[in-house]
């Protein structure tokens, strides 16, 4: 029993970070119908920023979020204005974004490889390898649970950021405009929302979330430039499971698959972990193609 709880805890802690990563990706699709294949390479680029700030300036990766997020926000707005605006309103826009972001991903991957080489990196703040140890409580005599500190802080920060995102979308004027644009772009225009501005801001938010995810990745998962393909596949699986464009769906999907993969790793073996995501992807596409919380969309 203790082992089951332990595995579930590890899964939830993993899910928290996945949720943050997937939220940004699904936001870009929900507001702008952009399928951003470069989302994971943005995360890895941000991981490099956090990694080097830790190595050279001793800045804690968790704190680096304060710098990386605004930086990636501005980067996202710039990328949107320069690259996406010119294809806005074209027929087959979503398909165009797949090609465009594929290109962006390859370019950034190449640049990262050129500047930082292809070797594995991982920041190692003290808490990254430390754990809280829980005993007593409801546990049988002598049993203990490990809660890895790094994962725990990361999930905590993810939840704070996602809660902030929720509050922003729910209560701010811009949040109203973003939700309105997600639900009905034409109607948003009709009531006077400048959907171009809202799109640029939303893309900036999406990349800012990638930035925060990268800061967490810098010490949680070893990374190198090419790694992003593996990540984007996992993130797309999460987003499709939750329903493309549904932030709630992405978060729930992330936690569910985090826990599921954690059990697969424990029961079957570590090499089968990533398979969980693809298997879930196949099943959801067969059974409910719109995802758990998605709407029917014609893409």
């Amino acid at each position, binding site marked *: 029993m203790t082992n089951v709880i332990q595995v579930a805890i590890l899964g939830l802690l993993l899910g928290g970070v996945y949720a943050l990563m997937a939220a940004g990706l699904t936001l870009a699709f929900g507001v702008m119908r952009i399928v951003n294949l470069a989302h994971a390479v943005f995360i890895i680029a941000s991981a490099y920023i956090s990694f080097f700030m830790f190595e050279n300036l001793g800045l804690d990766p968790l704190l680096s979020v304060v710098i990386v997020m605004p930086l990636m926000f501005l980067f996202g707005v710039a990328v949107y204005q320069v690259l996406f605006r010119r294809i806005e309103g074209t027929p087959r826009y979503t398909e165009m974004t797949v090609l465009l972001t594929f290109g962006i991903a390859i370019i950034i991957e190449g640049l990262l490889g050129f500047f930082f080489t292809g070797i594995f990196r991982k920041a190692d703040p003290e808490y990254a390898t430390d754990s809280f140890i829980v005993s007593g409580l409801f546990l049988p005599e002598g049993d203990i649970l490990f809660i890895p500190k790094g994962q725990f802080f990361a999930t905590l920060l993810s939840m704070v950021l996602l809660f902030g995102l929720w509050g922003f979308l729910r209560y701010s004027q811009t949040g109203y405009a973003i939700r309105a644009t997600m639900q009905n772009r034409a109607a*948003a225009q009709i009531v006077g929302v400048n959907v171009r501005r809202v799109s640029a801001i939303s893309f900036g938010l999406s990349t800012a979330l990638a930035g925060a995810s990268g800061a967490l990745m810098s010490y949680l998962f070893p990374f190198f430039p090419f790694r992003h393909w593996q990540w984007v596949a996992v993130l797309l699986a999460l987003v499709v499971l939750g329903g493309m464009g549904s932030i709630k769906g992405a978060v729930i999907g992330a936690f569910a698959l985090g826990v599921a993969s954690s059990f697969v790793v424990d029961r079957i073996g570590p090499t089968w972990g990533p398979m969980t995501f693809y298997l879930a992807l196949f099943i959801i596409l067969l059974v409910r193609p719109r995802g758990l919380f998605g709407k029917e969309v014609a893409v």
Partner: protein
Amino acid sequence: MPPILEISNINAGYGAGPNILQGLSLEVEEAKSYCIIGPNGAGKSTLFKVIAGLLHPRSGDVVFRGESLARRRPDQVLATGVCFVPQDQALFPEMSVRENLVMGAYLVRDRALVRQRMDRVYEMFPILKERAGQDAGKLSGGQQQMLAMGRALMIDPILLMLDEPSLGLAPQVAQQIFTRVRELEELGITVLIVEQNAQRGLELADWGVVLDLGIVRFEGPADGILEDPRIRELYLGKAASAGDTN
């Protein structure tokens, strides 16, 4: 009195497609109501989209109270007091009725004014007040249309365009909508309406405009159009003589 809205020689179409509007010109006078009729594909909805800034014309100009709207964004057009209520799917389905109204006043920063206008909308459409907390997507067709019109009033428009407000509604419900349209006219709002029930639409309006193949084929006092046998035959269909184009 100079026209409040002057549309001159508009050519417009979608993407790389052909011109839907082909040199259309029209003058609209303040505080009058206009019913635009014409067969499918005549360009009625396209004309509204051009005026609202949702579709930029390839040539020609739209001048509202002396200002050109032809190159403006939809939010800039709305800020001048020109408001568009499209045919369908005009609402935010996962927002409540109240939130939809708040969105209608998105450009209004004065909260007291928003509240005041919302009270006015609730007074005009009491059902919206009853359903204030409900998601817009869960309302009936007639209620959704009322919400779309109520939301348009939140901006206090000078000119209001209604695209087939009675589409898909039961006759009694459509009748309620028409009564509200009449009230809007009495408020002094200039109303442009496209109505698939041409007979009914023309009865509501002061002026009738017949659109065909992207130009204004004929215009004149609405009651005159209703009585013109040629137009009845060409654009109102035979059923019109029985008083029903549905």
